[in-house]
């Protein structure tokens, strides 16, 4: 057992609260270590030295000042029928934390110098995306009317091709 460990255990040893095995080890160390024996002697002396520190009486002038406190201090306000103590309960802390994060993020939009630019840019992107979507939809709607024209032109080009190259058109 090391001296540092013994030092920590000595107050518990003095109160006779050490488990038997640890007590045997500590006593074996004490028999060999004069340093720890000295520490033990100091520790034994300390409670009586501390207990000998006497109580002091308070002075009459302090007593008078304490009596006079109500006349010097505004009367304490009486407790209201309701209180907001529930806000400080530990169970409510996650809600308060989430609300703080939300307000923190919101503050970027409301109070940050670039906040307006940021929201304008977001709006522009949204509008751009929406107009692109509209164009795609419009093209998709016109597609059924456009298909016969494409088919006709394809057929015409195939015909002209077969006429110019009769042997290859057979293969096709």
């Amino acid at each position, binding site marked *: 057992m090391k001296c540092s460990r013994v*030092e*920590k255990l*000595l*107050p*518990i040893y003095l109160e006779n609260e050490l488990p038997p095995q640890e007590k045997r080890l500590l006593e074996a160390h004490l028999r060999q270590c004069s340093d720890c024996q*000295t*520490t033990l*002697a*100091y*520790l*034994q*002396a*300390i*409670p009586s*030295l*501390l*207990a*000998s*520190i*006497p*109580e*002091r*009486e*308070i*002075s009459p002038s*302090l*007593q008078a*000042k*304490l*009596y006079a*406190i*109500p006349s010097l*201090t505004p*009367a*304490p*306000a*009486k*407790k209201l029928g309701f209180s907001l103590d529930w806000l400080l309960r530990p169970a409510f802390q996650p809600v308060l934390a989430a609300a703080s994060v939300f307000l923190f993020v919101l503050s970027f939009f409301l109070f940050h110098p670039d906040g307006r630019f940021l929201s304008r840019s977001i709006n522009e992107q949204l509008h751009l995306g929406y107009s692109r979507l509209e164009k795609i939809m419009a093209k998709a709607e016109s597609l059924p009317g456009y298909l016969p024209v494409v088919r006709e032109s394809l057929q015409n080009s195939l015909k002209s091709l077969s006429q110019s190259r009769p042997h290859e058109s057979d293969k096709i």
Partner: protein
Amino acid sequence: MEKVVQECLDGSEGAWRTLVDTFSKRIFNLAYQFCGRYEEAEDLTQEIFMKIYTSLPKYDPKKNLTAWVLTLAKNHLIDTYRRTKREKTQRDDFDENLPVEMESGPEEIMVATEEKNLIWQGLEKISPDIRLAVILIEIQGRSYEEAAAILGAPQGTVKSRVNRGKIQLARILRQSGGQP
């Protein structure tokens, strides 16, 4: 005592005097043993009582009044310590007129007073939490249950603080060459 608190809130001067008479000596001694300076302890006691007076509406009658009052005192002492720790000077000299065993000779009396002075000065060198635990348990002789309620810590923690305090004081005595 809960009735006294209500009467204080109703503006009764007599009730406030009862409250002062009940707790002033305990709070003053707690402050004096904590800070080690008589005049500073007087100022601290006054500040603590002003805090008690303004906090009376927050007192919950279901709670122990003594523990509530002493917890306010403890909080004020720790707050003040943290605010002013760099300004601290030495503690007052330990009173040399303290009673010692009548059978002791002059040399033994001198040694005993020197030891007590070393312990008294040594209190300044230990951390405020540990110091308060040592004061409540070893100097004032309060129970671990009462000290735990005042310090707002489990009894095991209070016990561990007291043991650490004793070890630190033993080191201080040893370094100062006091006799075991």
